[in-house]
């Protein structure tokens, strides 16, 4: 027996919907095996991991809070990946946004800043994220340097920059030498939406970005250009689309959205800068983008699912003493399955009996 792939003439639309669902199903099935291997009761562990986060208002708010940065970043990444630009450094762009926006909050701390402070922080954060993303974009278009490696190297640089700032110049003077900045003042924090939780204005902003992203991709010339450059670069060149300009555009958008996510996280959820500001949102968002089939609305659904695994992982650590890394294992497995199931879209797999040839 051997597996043979035959190219499909066209993809039935049902498969487009089924393939991510199949991937999620396979991940859950693997999760059961992992739980069994770790000596846990699989049904209880599944409940703690995937359902408990949805069982009360606090959990639901946390899901929204965690999904916000994931979806914001993933919508940008979807544009990038669609146009064949492999930005994998969103984590760094996220941190730069948090550093720039948070820096403004630290600088204005104690001063009578007024209502413009928060909008200014969001703007500065988005700009800083975009600027950080433009480095690999420019190096790619000017010198042909592989953007995968440069964008990733800049993640490490951003992490070290944040580490230096919160341990050095920006450290809270009354913080007992702990590595974090002052807690942001009221004007520098994103307003909460509900009492007794952390749901804040960031989530509606994220939803607006999803709608904007869907309109951009589905209804505008720019969106068509992005898809065309990715799927048929030759045709795009004949159509007169400028590939370099497009690379800059998508990198700038992705960086700005990641930066925005960074400020929202710093000013809305954490309310100060600290070295472990991000539990790897920038990397998890890559999975979100692929699971969402590089479609903004899909990213929203996928982001919610991955947010659940984050919270489920924390619950499982507390209730079942499972290491936090198990979440990463599931996330990696999920991306494996997503990619494997995507093969179904392009090819029809067939098992052939081994014959003479």
């Amino acid at each position, binding site marked *: 027996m051997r597996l043979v*792939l035959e190219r499909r003439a066209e993809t039935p639309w049902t498969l487009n919907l089924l393939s991510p669902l199949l991937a999620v199903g396979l991940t859950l099935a693997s999760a059961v095996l992992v739980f069994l291997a770790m000596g846990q009761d699989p049904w209880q562990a599944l409940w703690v991991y995937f359902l408990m986060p949805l069982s009360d208002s606090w959990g639901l708010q946390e899901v929204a809070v965690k999904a916000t940065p994931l979806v914001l970043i993933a919508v940008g990444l979807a544009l990038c990946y669609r146009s064949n630009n492999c930005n994998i450094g969103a984590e760094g762009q996220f941190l730069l946004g948090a550093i720039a926006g948070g820096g403004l909050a630290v600088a204005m701390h104690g001063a009578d800043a007024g209502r413009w402070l928060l909008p200014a922080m969001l703007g500065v954060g988005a700009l800083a994220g975009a600027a950080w993303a433009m480095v690999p974009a420019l190096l790619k278009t000017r010198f042909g340097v592989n953007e995968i490696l440069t964008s990733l190297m800049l993640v490490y640089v951003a992490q070290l920059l944040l580490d230096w700032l919160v341990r050095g110049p920006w450290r809270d003077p009354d913080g007992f030498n702990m590595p974090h900045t002052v807690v942001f003042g009221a004007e520098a924090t994103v307003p909460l939406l509900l009492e007794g939780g952390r749901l804040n204005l960031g989530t509606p902003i994220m939803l607006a970005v999803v709608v904007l992203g869907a309109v951009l991709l589905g209804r505008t010339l720019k969106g068509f250009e992005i898809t065309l450059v990715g799927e048929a670069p030759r045709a795009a060149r004949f159509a007169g689309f400028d590939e370099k300009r497009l690379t800059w555009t998508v990198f700038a958008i992705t960086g700005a959205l990641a930066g925005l996510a960074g400020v929202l996280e710093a000013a809305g959820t954490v309310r100060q800068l600290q070295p472990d500001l991000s539990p790897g949102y920038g990397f998890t968002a890559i999975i979100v983008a692929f699971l969402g089939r590089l479609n903004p609305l899909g990213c929203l659904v996928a982001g919610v699912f991955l947010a659940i695994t984050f919270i489920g992982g924390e619950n499982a650590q507390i209730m079942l003493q499972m290491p936090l890394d198990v979440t990463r294992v599931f996330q990696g497995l999920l991306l494996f399955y997503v990619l494997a199931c995507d093969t179904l879209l392009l090819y029809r797999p067939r098992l052939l009996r081994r014959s003479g040839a």
Partner: protein
Amino acid sequence: MLLLEAILLTVIVASTPLLLAAIGELVVERSGVLNLGVEGMMIMGAAVGIVAAITTGSSALGVAAAVAAGMAMAAIFGALTLGLAANQVAAGLALSIFGIGLSGVVGAGSVGVPREGIGQIALPLLSDIPFIGHVLFRQDPFVYASFALVAGVSWFLWRTRAGLVLRACGENPASAHALGYLVLRIRFLAVLFGGACAGLAGAYLSLVMTPFWSSGMTAGRGWIALAIVVFASWLPWRAALGAYLFGGVTILQLHAQGAGVPLPTQLLAALPYLITILVLVLIMALRRGGGGGPQSLGTPFVPDR
């Protein structure tokens, strides 16, 4: 002289894991496959290597287990990208995320458990040469292995028929297929070799360099190994040069910190990453677009029957 000797010895220690991982990835990319999961395979090698060494009490078994772990990870990647023609960039990323997570789970019980490192092997006579002998011929087996691998890969790729076929798969898989070579099988073997090398590099980290396990201990070395392959223009001896250059920068940075250079430690720690970017830019500027990697690097190949 003694200080210089000490510095050179630490440079070798810092460079060896980079070289081991880079030489494996070089072969993978020569066959036309871009495996971005080096970091994941390497860290699994580190975790499985130390856990196996602690449980069996044998360093040799630890190394063997690390190599096997690297190959198992590579096999997952191969099954996805070759068997199912999946996107290589995304599959490599998934491999890295998966490996970092799984290594944390595997190593959870062995965090910080100290262990005797693997001893050095002094080559008779040669190691008695003052200075040179000390630096070059009184090393742990991994260092010798890394140079043996560079020489072996160089010979294999340019002096053997199998090496020619492997390179053909990376340049033009359709032609290689038309000549009757099993492109996917050859690429799969190359991917496995890359996994074995990355696993070996991981074993070096957890069994020799810092003889204990700590979560996330590869710290981006797998990614730097990928950059070294580009730096090396896919040539084995240049990969050795690149690995030692990067190893040297890392050590210089550590010595600068130790000597109390009035710069933030974080800036010094960021140097290897910044220099990686700088070197990539210089390489591409000098090359002016021409003469890059293998022609079909990163493109899936699905044979027509």
